[in-house]
């Protein structure tokens, strides 16, 4: 795992919000960085819909999951949406173990996530 400075590798505007693409392994060494990046994006763009495209994430631990829970609650409180998409199976498995696969809106791909 090379240690990049940021976790979100790219962002793309959509009609009603934003798609963000984090990359690499999201463990306790990088989840605090992701948390800060998401909070700044949510503050600055105030998106109706935030799509987090997890296709480039090979691993996530519970601190990464906690960060996503926090972002989702931030969005819900403002009556807005957070959608996850393109999870690799090994990343999905931690959501299942934590029984959060039913709590998040999880789409197969970015196309579906933009409409979900």
């Amino acid at each position: 795992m090379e240690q990049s400075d940021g976790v979100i590798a790219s962002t793309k505007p959509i009609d009603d919000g934003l798609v963000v693409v984090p990359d690499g392994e999201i463990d306790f060494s990088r989840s605090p960085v992701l948390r800060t990046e998401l909070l700044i994006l949510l503050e600055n763009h105030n998106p109706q819909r935030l799509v987090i495209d997890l296709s480039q994430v090979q691993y996530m631990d519970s601190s990464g999951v906690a960060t996503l829970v926090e972002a989702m609650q931030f969005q819900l409180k403002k009556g807005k949406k957070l959608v996850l998409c393109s999870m690799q199976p090994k990343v999905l498995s931690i959501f299942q173990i934590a029984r959060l696969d039913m709590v998040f809106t999880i789409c197969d791909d970015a196309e579906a996530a933009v409409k979900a």
Partner: protein
Amino acid sequence: MISMPTDPHIEVSILSRPQYLCVVRAAAREALTQLGLYDAEIIKVITAVDEAVTNVIRHGYGDREDGPIRVRLWPVEQAGRTGVQIVIEDETHGVDLSKIEGRPLDEIRPGGLGVHIIRQVMDEVEYTNRPDHKGVCLKMRKYNQPAAPAQTG
């Protein structure tokens, strides 16, 4: 109580820095493969180890960046099932074991998932304080499920 076999087959130790977690995961991945754990279990067991070591860094050592954390692995066999034993030790001064508890999952909030994941993934989990306040010891085991459909019992 989980009994301790002889010399570990594989050991990986780090100082308590989050950036060294990836070393533990990489070593654990190859180790679990070589110790014969089935592919489908490997990523889950890596996650359990990662959560346990993260907890030592966060809760055991707090801000200390020079605390040793040792992860040792053995092959085990029990009632015809093969598996692995993993022991994780720190050099903190021990902990109130009753505080090491996964929270109920019905409450949706960030945090409090690590211990739950460990208990969910592993077949046996045992936290103890090492004698003389030498630190915390976590012993856990995971067995391969028999390929044929069978009732666990």
